[in-house]
């Protein structure tokens, strides 16, 4: 087996077998599960007292009400005494008595508290509709008169693209993108820098470099970390898809999903696009820099500090996005969307805002990819020297000493 692949696989397996990776992967799912579970428990705990009973001497009237609003009604209670008993035991929010008298339908609600706005408007809507049907029947009108009376007013809604839901979707996409990129880059730069730094100056590196080239080993490490993030993204995609399907079908989240369907679709489209490529390339370039940073520590004991320079750069790129959340057309955003280390944040934001052409995107990706190759090539070349020198001196002296291994 190719030695590059052996190092890649070893790095990948060591990471994915660790508890920190399992927790990293499961974290979002645990949060989702806990929120849904808490919502469900809350809903089920109060379910009995939210329901109402419908009591009526006219069975047809009761039946048609239940058909129109089955979610709010406890269908098993049919008489007033049972309803009062259940209400006193906190098992029922109240009961609605429906009756028809002298051509007029009336409803009387008795409950432990006022009706919820939604339930009240549904009852009103039902009563109006039922009264209208009764009126039409009593008036004994011709078919054309009935048709004429059934005319309804219409309300049309036109939403401009840059306003309303589309705008909210962009804002949500903006925040999800920058926070996701920041979190993922932070996680992987820390993992890489600490992993490299912990090997720094140890004799295991001499054993490894007596078996394969430092360049191959370095690339193997980077590819291993890249595989880890690919695995994480795959798990998130599959898990996210499952959560999306669940949310669409669960009674708890279905109303929310229907109400915000267009916005959710829009956010998902923004996230599951070429932006993922930027995320992956961003991880690669930050990982390479993190490896370099890890190789520059004085000794393996300094591993926890190793990621600091890269984390600071990532933090800077993250914060620079803030002033532009409402001004994504700015020239600064355009320039930064081509500069490696910043483009992973800024080009996705331009893509979300629909102000990046295909050429802009291709150009930015080419610059980023080229930078990755150049950076990997250079660091791979000096990697051996940096890893083998063990001077406990200043940064520049260590750097120069590392370079002198290869001169």
């Amino acid at each position: 087996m190719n030695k590059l692949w052996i190092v890649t696989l070893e790095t990948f397996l060591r990471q994915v077998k660790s508890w920190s990776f399992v927790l990293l992967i499961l974290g979002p799912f645990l949060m989702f599960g806990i929120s849904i579970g808490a919502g469900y428990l809350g809903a089920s705990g109060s379910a009995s007292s939210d329901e109402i009973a419908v009591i009526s001497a006219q069975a047809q009237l009761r039946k048609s009400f239940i058909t129109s609003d089955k979610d709010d009604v406890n269908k098993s209670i049919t008489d007033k005494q049972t309803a009062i008993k259940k209400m006193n035991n906190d098992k029922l929010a109240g009961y609605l008595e429906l009756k028809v008298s002298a051509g007029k339908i009336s409803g009387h609600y008795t409950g432990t508290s006022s009706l919820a706005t939604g339930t009240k408007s549904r009852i009103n809507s039902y009563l109006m509709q039922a009264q209208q049907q009764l009126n039409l029947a009593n008036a004994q009108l011709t078919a054309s008169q009935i048709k004429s009376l059934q005319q309804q007013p219409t309300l049309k809604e036109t939403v401009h693209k840059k306003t309303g839901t589309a705008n909210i979707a962009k804002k949500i996409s903006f925040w999800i993108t920058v926070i996701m990129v920041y979190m993922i880059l932070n996680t992987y730069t820390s993992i890489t820098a600490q992993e490299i730094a912990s090997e720094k100056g140890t004799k295991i590196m001499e054993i490894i470099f007596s078996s394969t080239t430092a360049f191959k080993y370095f690339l193997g490490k980077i590819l291993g970390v890249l595989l880890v993030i690919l695995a994480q993204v795959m798990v998130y995609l599959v898990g996210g898809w499952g959560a999306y399907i669940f949310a669409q079908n669960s009674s708890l989240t279905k109303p929310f999903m229907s109400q915000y369907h267009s916005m959710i679709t829009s956010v998902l489209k923004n996230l599951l696009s070429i932006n993922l490529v930027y995320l992956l390339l961003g991880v690669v370039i930050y990982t390479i820099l993190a490896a370099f940073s890890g190789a520059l520590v004085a000794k393996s004991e300094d591993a926890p500090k190793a990621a600091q320079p890269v984390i600071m750069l990532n933090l800077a790129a993250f914060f620079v996005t803030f002033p532009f959340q409402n001004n994504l057309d700015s020239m600064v955003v355009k320039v930064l969307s081509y500069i490696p280390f910043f483009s992973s944040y800024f080009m996705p934001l331009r893509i979300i805002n629909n102000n990046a052409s295909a050429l802009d995107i291709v150009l930015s990706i080419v610059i980023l990819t080229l930078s990755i190759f150049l950076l990997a090539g250079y660091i791979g070349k000096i990697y051996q020297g940096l890893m083998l020198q063990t001077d406990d001196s200043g940064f520049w002296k260590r750097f120069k000493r590392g370079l002198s291994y290869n001169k």
Partner: protein
Amino acid sequence: MLKIQDISKNFGSLQALKDVSFDVADGQIMGLIGQNGAGKSTTFHSILNFLNYQGTITWNDQAITEPVFDEIGYLPEERSLMPKLTVEQQIVYLARLKNQPAKKIRPQIDNWLERFAVKGNKKDKIKSLSKGNQQKVQLICTLIHNPKLIILDEPFSGLDPVNADLLKQAILTAKEQGAAIIFSSHDMENVEELCDKLVMLRNGQVILHGTVREVRQSFGKTRILVTTNWTKEQLEKLPHIIKVERHEEQRYLLSLDDETAGEAIFDELTQGKYIEEFSQQPPTLDEIFRLKAGEKDE
């Protein structure tokens, strides 16, 4: 055959190696000796291509690059393994980096652990082993792929006499199998016992080079071990004696400034009569090491 020709290496203004040359044939053991900082590790690093240098280093007339790495077994001066791996994972990982298939290595591990008397199981984590056992696992990693060129940097340091014997046996077995072996050591007894030849470095330069016998003979037979009833004071008055050390009751080590004086001293001490012990020898490697290490560069 490992051939090193005129290699030099500078670290800034520090000259770490200067025109170092030697070779090690297949089935030969060479000792690389010298004080700390003499350039032994830099020589090993040059052989392993860890650093750029001036001069030529070849293994069987090939430059030492990645294809040759698979034929090398290297034990660095300080011991270091991957603490979170199990013994088996560690051995297999490093062997795979030497192009050895895992399925070939795995069945051998138990035998190697037994051979080196490693206390522990192959499923134990490296970090759970004692320092000595970790050292033995590292030796196994160095040797398990049957390297043709073995480089051992201070292999005996930290080993007790029993384990040192196990290592000596492993080195001699590798020699019998035709490996070229080069090791550094501060223990001259081990060098004398195992090595066919030696190179001594001082300040990056070769100051001694040859077989152990040649090197010792080159210092002349300036050492006399004698058992006599003469007193130390009487012995010190003999011609060409520069030092007298009493080893045991009536047993002395005499150091001469001229080996040809040995015959006259023999005549003087024996007076034509029987004497229990009189042995004129070249200095030991240990004495040579101390002597040469203390000299100043020319």
